């Protein structure tokens, strides 16, 4: 195994901390820094326990150490409001940024659908769409690679406890960004996204429903095969991703009923919506790591 690539986690909340636990198991990525803004945050404490360096001074607390600690990748799990500034500073320092906020400055990455397309492009910023996008866009793509999809709509239902203040303050960002991802990555001509928060106790595991309207009569056998194959692809990094029902065919409607259970690293298992984001982000970083190691993203080369 070649040398691991050092990475920084920006944001010490649920997402950043869960991502740290996953990254600690990675063969390609070494999480070496966690950045927070609250000295008392549980995430920073957990990071120190696991040997990471930490700062509670935000991105500026990390910048002086980027070169000396050879940080080549940063995961941004802050918010859509903070991300642009973080992205600018990290780009100037030649650090590749994987954006888990809905800011969506860089191109979308949904690993089982278009991770390979990002390889070799030397993009300095890739965006992970949204949790609902990560959970459903693979299914839209599974249908659209069989035949044209005029319209795809997703309904993501998440436990109230797993929807943080950032999501709640700007829920339109979720519907907008997800709908755009359904089109540009999922391959549907038109996309729509709906999100429902359910406060039930015990919390419900994330549910996602994908409805596709195909241009012509759906090719049932091929769609079933394609969906099954795609489920297995997602399960490689989110083992709790499962097909509960479907594909259901009704005229030109193809409906797929999914459940996403997380690994329970830092976030509880019901928060599959957050888990699939952190797992997808890590998988993206792992794909980029060998290219970075091979010198394809030489420092200072950033445009």
């Amino acid at each position, binding site marked *: 195994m070649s040398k691991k690539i050092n990475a920084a986690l920006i944001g010490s909340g649920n997402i950043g901390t869960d991502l740290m636990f996953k990254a600690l198991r990675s063969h390609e990525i070494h999480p070496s820094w966690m950045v927070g803004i609250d000295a008392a945050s549980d995430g920073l404490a957990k990071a120190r326990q696991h040997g990471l360096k930490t700062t509670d001074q935000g991105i500026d607390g990390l910048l002086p150490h980027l070169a000396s600690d050879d940080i080549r990748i940063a995961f941004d799990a802050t918010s859509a409001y903070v991300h642009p500034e973080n992205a600018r500073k990290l780009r100037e320092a030649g650090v590749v940024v994987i954006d888990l906020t809905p800011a969506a400055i860089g191109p979308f990455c949904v690993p089982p659908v278009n991770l390979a397309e990002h390889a070799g492009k030397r993009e300095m910023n890739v965006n992970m769409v949204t949790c609902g996008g990560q959970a459903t866009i693979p299914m839209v793509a599974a249908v659209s690679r069989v035949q044209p999809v005029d*319209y795809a*709509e997703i*309904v993501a*239902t998440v436990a*109230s406890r797993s929807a943080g*203040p950032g999501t*709640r*303050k*700007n*829920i*339109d960002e*979720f*519907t*907008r960004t997800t709908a755009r991802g359904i089109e540009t990555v999922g391959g549907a001509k038109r996309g*729509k996204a*709906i*999100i*429902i*928060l*359910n*406060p*039930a106790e015990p919390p*419900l595991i994330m*549910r996602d*429903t994908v*409805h596709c*309207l195909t241009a012509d009569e759906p090719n049932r056998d091929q769609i079933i095969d394609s969906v099954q194959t795609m489920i297995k692809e997602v399960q490689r990094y989110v083992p709790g991703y499962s097909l*509960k*029902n*479907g594909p*259901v065919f009704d005229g030109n*409607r193809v*409906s797929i*009923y999914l459940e996403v259970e997380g690994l329970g690293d830092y976030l509880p298992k019901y928060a599959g919506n957050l888990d699939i984001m952190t797992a997808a982000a890590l998988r993206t970083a792992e794909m980029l790591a060998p290219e970075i190691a091979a010198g394809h993203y030489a420092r200072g080369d950033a445009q």
Partner: protein
Amino acid sequence: MTHSKILLHDMCLRDGMHPKRHQITVEQMRAIAKGLDEAGVPLIEVTHGDGLGGESVNYGFPLHSDEEYLRAVIDTVKRAKVSALLLPGIGTVEHLRMAKDLGVSTIRVATHCTEADVSEQHITLARQLGLDTVGFLMMAHMLDPEKLVQQALLMESYGANCIYCTDSAGYMLPDDVTARLSLLRERLKPDTELGFHGHHNLAMGIANSIAAVQAGANRIDGSAAGLGAGAGNTPLEVFNAVCHRMGIETGVDVMKLADVAEDLVTPIMDMPIRIDRDSLVLGYAGVYSSFLLFAKRAAAKYGVSSADILIEMGRMKTVGGQEDMIEDVAINMARAKN
């Protein structure tokens, strides 16, 4: 502290879209809106049943766009004002701006009763745009009065000038309404208006609305001929007549509104709006009223009982908007049977 004068808000062109599978024609909307206006109904809600942006596979595609419906009704009415519903997670601020540009006076931002903080973006904007801005707390039976007040205070803090206690499941009994509305009245600002939106699944629409008025509500939702989800909304013409008997001023003509219900709304019904077994289950088990027709269709398709589907939806503690789970539940039930 009963208000002697209240505002009636008609729902048949929005909540009534549910039993019409969102297929009301523009001509029907114009005719009904004209009748309501002439009867003196001051506020009429118009959109897809699930609010602005509700057009979808999940909730049904309407015959016309929200924009076409709103434009038609706004052009038709002379005195009445028009409101639009918006559920964050379905509709967005773009829809809100569109509705404002078309001339709606009132935006009602609806969330599940525990999730008021997803409405900040929309309530803030609606208020900035100078709209009458209502926070609409749905499925309010699922939350005790104290916690409901906490959620209402959030909406009030974002700028809502009116808060609704919304009995989406038609589950509440008059004492439940009294408990919630009186605490809201006690704890919200005195100039924040209060409203109640009922469903008639346990035939409590009128009694609950009266309880709401007696506890301090001054806006009451109802629907001419009851056209609305489940067993319908509080039948507005009946409620109006009761108000007249009780000396509660509505400004709405009893017989003219009864004519609208009888001559314009009832004839467009696809089925009688009544408390059938499934609607009774909605009210008894506390299930979102809009699930009714979806459950009936899934039951027919998969050979299972619609009442059982609704009971299971209640057991799963589903909330408004989770129509997608109905087919999922029906498939599971059919599988278990075989």
